């Protein structure tokens, strides 16, 4: 499993995580899934809807934001491929909380942000049995 992402979009995701520090930042990944080949085309940066006291280790994208995201994706002839979020001062591995609330098929791109500096991103997909994640390899498309 791979996900192809232009370098400038990955840079934007990482910058978003740095700007959100020490809180978690999140947003939607838009693009195309063509017979399993995923390519990121655009991003939607969203407010973390969690109450502020929990934003350091939790994020929430409301159903209302997802509804708007679906409409925007349709307008761009794309799909919501997944969600990006940051882990301030934690590894870019899915947490148990991530697993509990995850939805299969979506790509979950997690960026570790240590002391306000992004230190790497990895991407994950929930297995159908909901018990674990598998890594989706990030293929970066170089900037032209």
């Amino acid at each position, binding site marked *: 499993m791979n996900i192809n992402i232009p370098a400038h979009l990955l840079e934007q995701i990482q910058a978003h995580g740095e700007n959100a520090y020490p809180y*978690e930042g*999140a947003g939607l990944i838009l693009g195309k*899934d063509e017979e399993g080949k995923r390519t990121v085309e655009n991003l939607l940066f969203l407010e973390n809807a969690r109450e502020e006291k929990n934003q350091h*280790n*939790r*994020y*929430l*994208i*409301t*159903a*209302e934001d*997802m*509804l708007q995201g*679906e409409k925007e994706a349709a307008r761009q002839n794309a*799909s*919501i491929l997944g*969600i990006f*979020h940051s882990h301030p001062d934690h590894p870019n591995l*899915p*947490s148990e*909380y*991530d697993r509990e*609330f*995850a*939805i*299969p*098929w*979506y790509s*979950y791109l997690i960026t570790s942000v240590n002391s306000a500096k992004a230190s790497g991103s990895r991407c994950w997909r929930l297995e159908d049995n*909901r018990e674990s994640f598998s890594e989706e390899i990030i293929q970066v498309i170089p900037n032209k």
Partner: protein
Amino acid sequence: MPTLKIPTPLRPYAEGQSALTLPGQVVEEVLEGAVETYPLLKKHLFNDEGKLRPYVNLFLGEDNVNQLEGLKTPLSAEDTLLIIPSIAGG
């Protein structure tokens, strides 16, 4: 009959369909029809206690049915019900 729109992540559990036409007078009956017809959907819509998973939201047009009458919200034959996930993590 009302239409139930299936979001992209759940389509693999509904034989790839993006919309289902199902009998039902209220939201709950349409959902029950969906999981009876496509049992693989059940695990992703309901938890082990038979309650809707916290990320499952249902919209009638722009309105979240939680702001209407919840699972008892009445539906007409022309209505389209959307499943919209909310996304949480940590």
